[in-house]
């Protein structure tokens, strides 16, 4: 069966895919640059193009809270937010995961205030990496679309039952038109059966959800969450294989690009990887042995795959759109942390790039590689700071 290739805005691709996942309840609050997604979904509801109900909540806090209720009542649920909205959801993020509700949310990546900025970086989702959500990052709009049904299937698996956020860079992906293949409804139905949870809020079987735990049992709850996230690693691989069978597109927790003989391995997540690929192509033409490891799944964290990809490199460079203030980037810390106990570990340096929507060009990436080669890079630094204003 042929899938239709369309030129679509990223937000539209997401909305169409959410519809094809046969979501029951959508609950969202508008915030730039997530708005086009929720507007498209609201229009589909208004036009009767979906059976989903759209709850027009008064805040992001209630957006996710309503989905906690809807999911516990057995509905397949969806929300989308970004930046300040995700920050406002903070408490509910942990709660939804602890209650093991497989809510799926598109997190449009945007910087956090102050200063207020509506532009893209990934500080928002990286900052909630410990909330117990699966986190997947898309490079382009085909991925923003494809990762949604994959996320639902992993999240709803009885051995996983964790919420998932599919992250896409604000404006760079949400507002950009690209060719996207929106999968046929029949194929999505084949891949993603309806959500049939074992335990739901039902007067016929009056169970209690959300009891509190004293110190004699709290740790076991947390361990179960941790264990489920570890299991999500293999579950993602399994689901991705099924996805490939049905849709013909291949996914893994990471994607390698020209990495086999690479002496310098660049690691990053999201849309910047597209620019990095162009830079690597140019560097390769000049004989530089540079490759890329793209992280699609930040949680579960693909430690073994990262290890395999970088163990033979001469130097590893992590580029990320976030910073743990006063420390370094979160991804850099994570990678350094698990590599520390390996014997064959290459040096690892990191750059915070593109914060608050600062453009990162092919030239920037080439310059950064050159700096690393000259052994002039700090262990961690900000790329392209305007030193003259500091």
């Amino acid at each position: 069966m042929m899938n239709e290739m369309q030129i679509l805005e990223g937000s539209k691709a997401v909305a169409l895919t959410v519809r094809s996942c046969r979501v029951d309840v959508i609950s969202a609050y508008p915030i730039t640059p997530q708005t086009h997604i929720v507007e498209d979904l609201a229009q589909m509801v208004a036009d009767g193009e979906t059976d989903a109900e759209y709850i027009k909540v008064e805040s992001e806090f209630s957006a996710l809270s309503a989905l906690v209720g809807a999911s516990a009542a057995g509905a397949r649920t969806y929300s989308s937010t970004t930046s300040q909205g995700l920050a406002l959801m903070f408490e509910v993020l942990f709660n939804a995961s602890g209650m093991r509700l497989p809510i799926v949310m598109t997190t449009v990546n945007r910087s956090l205030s102050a200063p207020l900025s509506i532009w893209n970086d990934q500080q928002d989702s990286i900052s909630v990496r410990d909330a117990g959500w699966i986190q997947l990052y898309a490079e382009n709009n085909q991925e923003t679309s494809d990762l949604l049904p994959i996320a639902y299937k992993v999240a709803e698996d009885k051995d996983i039952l964790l919420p998932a956020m599919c992250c896409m860079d604000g404006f760079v992906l949400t507002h950009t038109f690209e060719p996207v293949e929106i999968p046929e409804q029949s194929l999505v139905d084949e891949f993603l059966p309806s959500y049939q949870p074992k335990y739901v809020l039902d007067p016929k079987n009056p169970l209690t959800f959300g009891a509190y735990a004293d110190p004699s049992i709290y740790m076991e709850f947390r361990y179960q969450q941790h264990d489920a996230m570890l299991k999500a690693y293999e579950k993602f691989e399994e689901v991705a294989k099924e996805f490939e069978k049905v849709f013909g597109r291949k996914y893994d927790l990471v994607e390698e690009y020209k990495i086999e003989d690479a002496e310098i391995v660049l690691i990053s997540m999201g849309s910047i990887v597209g620019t990095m690929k162009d830079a690597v192509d140019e560097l390769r033409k000049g004989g530089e042995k540079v490759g890329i490891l793209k992280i699609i799944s930040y949680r579960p964290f693909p430690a073994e795959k990262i290890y395999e990809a970088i163990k033979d490199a001469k130097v590893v460079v992590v580029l990320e759109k976030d910073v743990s203030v006063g420390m370094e980037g979160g991804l850099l810390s994570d990678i350094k942390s698990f590599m520390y106990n390996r014997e064959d570990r290459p040096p690892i340096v990191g750059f915070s790039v593109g914060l608050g929507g600062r453009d990162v060009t092919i030239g920037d990436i080439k310059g950064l590689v050159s700096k690393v080669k000259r052994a002039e890079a700090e262990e961690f630094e900000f790329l392209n700071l305007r030193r003259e204003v500091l």
Partner: protein
Amino acid sequence: MKLLPGGIVKPKTTVANKTGAWRTFIPIYDEDKCKKCGICETFCPEDCISVDENEFRHPDYDFCKGCGICAEECPADAIEMKYEEKE
């Protein structure tokens, strides 16, 4: 008992928790005075007062915390709170 995902709990399982142990004063019901109105049952915060076939009320001392609402509210003065000697 194995943890269910998210810690789902079965209904009405607090009955394993015998809150009668909290009691200092115990309500003693006098059937000679009882008018069978059921006010004690209505107001009992533990919901632990049952009715027998003669419509007399009996608190379940496994759960009665001895708050004394039943004695205070009984319009017939049929319930007396007594200090409970414990072993």
